[in-house]
């Protein structure tokens, strides 16, 4: 019998805290689709994480680093001029751009590096697209005295040369990946290949809520500090919860970090903004939730951009950090449940938002983040002045200056 089809049967409330299950599943999504060699490493990681998750001394060490190394809590800023210009809802920005290294990525790398330390692994590896996660990993590796290698698609090495040099200054080795489409997905393939080879001494620090279980869960948990802080900050500031949350979605870590602690707050609407590239109708984008279908890649089942035969297709986004054909499995589940609305914003809309925020508020956002801002601007105009939207300002735009200059026809 199909209970879903019968509207007389009221489905029980979803327990958002109960996922993933023991197999790492979020409904039909997630899991552990990796080669056998990695299973024991994932088992060890999962066992350790489940133990440390509720261990006060681990939590204390994590909180201490978040406070004194990352600089948390990050402020919430009321973008008054911009809100007034738009003439709709009040827009608040959760300032993850003010974190050490300039993005939300560091929250997760601090957590995973602590796990690596507990496991006694002297070497860490990471994949990176925009280079923000690579920089955050190189940073924490420098601090813990760990050897660090970062895999980065050859195309991204060129697009994000500033971050490549930052990683080198921090003592990490950046390995350009020449296989496949030479972007983030290929960097992740190469990191997985390295991990299979060096599994005894290496900890793989995955940069988003994707990959095989337990990564989607532990990255979510480490990033949830964003939403926990934001929820309380909004109550303190405005006396109530925001009416809507907006975050950009590459793999989905900054979005799940903001959303997860408020999933049970049914009055809070949520919008995950994917990269629409040249437009969904052109097929040249990076929006698997808006225009893809479920499949298996990089260790989990999730929405993907693929052709009819199940080959992963090349994506396009102006922002390297969103240029990925998959998405974290929890987002796939939240999409199917209808709890979060997933939408897409094109390259040029994101560029407009980048310029607007820079000029009206004096805050230069990352191009990834600019996608969330562009959607928030549209949403705000459909809402009342006494309503509020919280946008996750996931990172700052310094790393993107060369890209923007190039669009303006300027060589620096």
């Amino acid at each position, binding site marked *: 019998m199909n209970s879903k089809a019968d509207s007389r049967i009221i489905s029980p409330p979803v327990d958002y805290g109960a996922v993933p299950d023991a197999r790492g599943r979020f409904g039909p999504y997630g899991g552990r*689709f990796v080669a056998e060699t990695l299973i024991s490493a994932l088992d060890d990681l999962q066992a350790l994480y489940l133990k440390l998750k509720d261990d006060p001394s681990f939590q204390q060490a994590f909180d201490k680093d978040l406070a004194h190394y990352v600089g948390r809590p990050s402020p919430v800023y009321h973008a008054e001029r911009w809100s007034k210009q738009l003439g709709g809802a009040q827009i608040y920005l959760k300032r993850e751009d003010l974190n050490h290294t300039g993005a939300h990525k560091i929250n997760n790398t601090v957590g995973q590096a602590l796990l690596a330390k507990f496991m006694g692994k002297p070497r860490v590896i990471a994949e990176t697209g925009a280079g923000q996660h690579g920089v955050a990993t190189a940073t924490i590796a420098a601090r813990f005295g760990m050897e660090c290698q970062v895999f980065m698609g050859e195309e991204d090495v060129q697009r994000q040369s500033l971050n490549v040099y930052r990683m080198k200054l921090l003592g990490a080795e950046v390995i350009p990946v020449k296989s496949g489409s030479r972007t983030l997905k290929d960097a992740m393939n190469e990191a997985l290949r390295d991990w299979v*080879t060096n599994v005894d001494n290496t900890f793989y620090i995955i940069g988003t809520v994707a990959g095989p279980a337990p990564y989607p869960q532990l990255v979510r948990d480490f990033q949830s500090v964003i939403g926990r802080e934001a929820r309380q900050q909004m109550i303190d500031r405005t006396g109530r919860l925001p009416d809507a949350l907006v975050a950009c979605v590459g793999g989905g870590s900054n979005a799940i970090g903001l959303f997860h602690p408020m999933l049970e707050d049914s009055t809070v609407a949520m919008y995950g903004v994917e990269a629409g590239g040249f437009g969904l109708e052109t097929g040249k984008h990076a929006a698997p939730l808006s225009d893809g279908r479920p499949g298996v890649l990089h260790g989990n089942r999730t929405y993907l951009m693929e052709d009819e035969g199940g080959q992963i297709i090349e994506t396009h986004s102006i922002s390297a950090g969103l240029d990925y054909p998959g998405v974290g499995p929890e987002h796939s589940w939240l999409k199917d449940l209808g709890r979060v609305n997933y939408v897409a914003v094109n390259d040029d809309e994101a560029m407009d938002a980048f310029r607007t925020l820079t000029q009206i508020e004096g805050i230069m956002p990352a191009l990834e983040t600019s996608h969330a801002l562009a959607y928030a601007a549209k949403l705000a105009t459909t809402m009342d002045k006494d309503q509020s939207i919280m946008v996750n300002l996931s990172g700052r735009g310094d790393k993107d200056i060369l890209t923007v200059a190039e669009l303006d026809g300027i060589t620096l």
Partner: protein
Amino acid sequence: MSRIKATLANLKNTNRKAIIPYIVAGDPEPGATVDLMHALVDAGADIIELGVPFSDPMAEGPVIQLAHERALAHHVSLTHVLQMVSLFRETDQQTPVVLMGYANPIEAMSYVAFAQQAANAGVDGVLTVDMPPEEIGELGSLLIEQDIDSILLISPTTSPDRIEKICAKASGYIYYVSLKGVTGAGHLNVTEVAAQVDLIRQCTSLPICVGFGIKDAASAKSVAGIADGVVVGSVLVSNIAAAAEQQLPGDLNVKVLGEVVAKLVKDISVGANSVE
């Protein structure tokens, strides 16, 4: 009795090791594959592992990655691979064919359709690299229903508990991955392989075939002393690529490629069967 079971039982009775070459379907071009399969059989292959091209072959080293890319440049899909097997079956009803690939092309086709079409094409076994026993459940049952063996991997990092669990689910043969690494890696340690193969033997009477890191008669010989068969991939694939590169583009002489792989398979067969 399944073709795989019959073949391996027959080899055991005659005291020979299974020689299992791996090539990527559609590499260097789609028209070459069926001829290459026949050439492999003529040279002494007992089972053929046919790689199904995938855009993100995360367990492969550089040599086999490039083969997947060459095949995909010709848009070779899982459907095409099944057509190649059908074509091969028109003249060879004996040699077992095992498809080795990744989950997503099968997901895209749907498990039910794949199991049925694979059976129709004459596929004997399926090995999906990124589907460990925890994830293979539904696909595994559908394959078994069609009398297709679900071949599972065991690796150097597989714990004794897991070995037991995997042996209980596997059929056809156990594919033992001889090293921590990707295909084509060179750091094979025979003592370590022997210890793990011993553990596997305590859990199953299925034949154990060893792959990854076998590249010539000597390495085949060292592994054949402890295993029932050897899988050879990267060295075949790299030689196919090198031979193809020496030919005129658009005018591939498949016979020459066949001679190249035949020589390699014969060498490896001599090595594997020279164990006292």
